[in-house]
């Protein structure tokens, strides 16, 4: 039996790095400090060797690589998608592969915080780290997100609860405001809950900006929120010492999308005329931030990239996975550590069922189930080392507490990369 301390959990963008695992016979028998989601990730993972499959039949690794390479090299418009639950090292070789075969490459960002990327490019972003928030922030605004469910330890480790260098009393020294359409689990634990009408985030943000500039609104309510309450909220934001707006898919998945987020960023910019303020997207998958980082280093763009002309072109709405699949454009699909069959609109899913697909994933997802070629791989941070970026863009090194019995995502991608060059 061995005890492995300070393991990083890769379930969500919090990347909690204080997990303790008890390991017996190369199996995780006890998980300490993790949230329910983190425990599920470690306890649910079976590290045993599993052979790759082609058309549902187990085959030797070289045969699966040959089939995958043939599919990709014979495609006229291949798409590489996913990347948010794998290491930076695997992401890097995915971009190299996309360039080699002239593919489109897109990450799960496009159905998560892709619109946030567009907003950042439009007006910029006031950044900070979770460490700064822990030590300094006395006002936390959660807009369109529900961290008590999606990022369960965010409150405890980084935001609402911890005592910090200038926040000696922890929760008592911080004010928590939740803005949402529904009274979520997070809203129930807030000091102030502002319930807005669905689809009115943009209007409410514009009204807040107007009030911040001292304008008088003739409307008595905006988006279902009394103007008086918005005025009180503006006063709270202006008078804090260090405020942060965390925001989620309540802004990016609804009407307005990137325009909603642009208003958050520009509100934060205005607030910095009065006090210190930042904004931070609540990134979902463990290394979705890394996917944006790697593609930005290598291509200049964070997602929705196409290499068919031999150089990277950026096209949200054109080279994004949902558009390429529902528009019936991509003719082959390589999915890395993601499950579009579970998370894409039905029309895109129906199309995936009709084109050859390759899936690289430690867990047999719904997409893996229908894949032409499936590679069961090691899981980053469990039986495979690597690097991942936390939601505040801080990179962390991942250990491999279990002995590895499968190929890593990186090894499979390297083999495919060599394979397509030979085709």
């Amino acid at each position, binding site marked *: 039996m061995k005890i492995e301390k300070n393991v990083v959990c890769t379930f969500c963008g919090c990347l909690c790095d204080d997990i303790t695992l008890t390991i017996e016979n190369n199996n995780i028998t006890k998980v300490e400090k993790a949230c*329910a*989601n983190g425990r*599920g*990730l470690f*306890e*649910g993972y079976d590290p045993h060797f599993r052979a790759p499959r082609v058309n549902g039949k187990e085959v030797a690794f070289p045969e699966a690589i040959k089939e995958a390479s043939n599919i990709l090299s014979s495609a006229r418009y291949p798409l590489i998608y996913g990347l948010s639950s794998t290491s930076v090292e695997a992401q890097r070789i995915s971009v190299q592969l996309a360039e080699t075969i002239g593919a489109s490459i*897109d990450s799960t960002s*496009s*159905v998560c915080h*892709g*619109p946030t990327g*567009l907003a950042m490019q439009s007006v910029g972003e006031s950044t900070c780290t979770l460490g700064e928030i822990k030590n300094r922030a006395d006002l936390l605004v959660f807009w369109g997100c*529900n961290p008590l*469910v*999606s990022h369960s330890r965010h409150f405890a480790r980084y935001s609402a609860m911890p005592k910090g260098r200038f926040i000696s009393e922890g929760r008592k020294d911080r004010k928590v405001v939740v803005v949402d*359409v*529904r*009274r*979520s689990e997070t*809203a*129930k634990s807030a000091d102030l809950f502002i*319930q807005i*009408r*669905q*689809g009115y985030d943009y209007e409410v943000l514009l009204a807040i900006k107007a009030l911040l500039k001292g304008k008088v609104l003739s409307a008595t309510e905006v988006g279902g929120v009394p103007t008086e309450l918005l005025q009180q909220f503006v006063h709270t934001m202006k008078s804090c010492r260090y405020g942060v707006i965390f925001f989620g*898919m*309540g802004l*990016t*998945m*609804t*009407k307005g*999308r*990137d325009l909603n987020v642009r208003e958050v960023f520009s509100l934060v910019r205005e607030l910095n005329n009065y006090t210190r303020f930042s904004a931070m997207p609540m990134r979902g998958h463990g290394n979705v931030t890394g996917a944006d980082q790697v593609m930005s280093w290598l291509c200049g763009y964070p*997602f*929705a990239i196409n290499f068919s002309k031999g150089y990277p072109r950026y096209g*949200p*709405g054109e080279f*994004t*996975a*949902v*558009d390429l699949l*529902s*528009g019936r454009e991509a003719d082959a699909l390589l999915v890395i550590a993601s*499950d579009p*069959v*579970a*998370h*894409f*609109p*039905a*029309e*895109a*899913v129906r199309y995936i069922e009709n084109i050859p697909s390759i899936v690289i994933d430690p*867990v*047999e*997802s*719904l997409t893996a*189930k229908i894949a032409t070629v499936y590679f069961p791989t090691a899981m980053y941070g469990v039986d495979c080392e690597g690097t991942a970026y936390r939601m505040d863009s801080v990179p962390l090194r991942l250990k491999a507490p279990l002995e590895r019995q499968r190929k890593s995502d990186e090894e499979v991608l390297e083999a495919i990369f060599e394979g397509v060059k030979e085709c």
Partner: protein
Amino acid sequence: MQVCTLISGRTLEQAKGMHGGKNNDGYKKAVEKAFLSPLLLEKLGLSEGEEILLTTPYGSVRVKTCADMGLPEDVVFMPMGPMVNLLVGPETEGTGMPSFKGLKVEVDKAR
């Protein structure tokens, strides 16, 4: 029949089901349901646990109901996953992001 707005998102049960594998019954049970305000349930003449039919221009699904006091009367919430995605259209308005939140949906008793 009522016309409401549909939103989707993560739930603890959906995440837990996912760890057990998306082919398992636990996951299916977690995502094949809809949350409605008690007022909307009353308007539809339904009790919690009874089934409703949700329809958008992209598809129809039949799911069990759960009451949620935190929801406005005109909003229906479904856990993210393959069931709600049968109701979601592919248009992304030039961003890559479909409307996973904010779809108009017809809500009716399942017959």
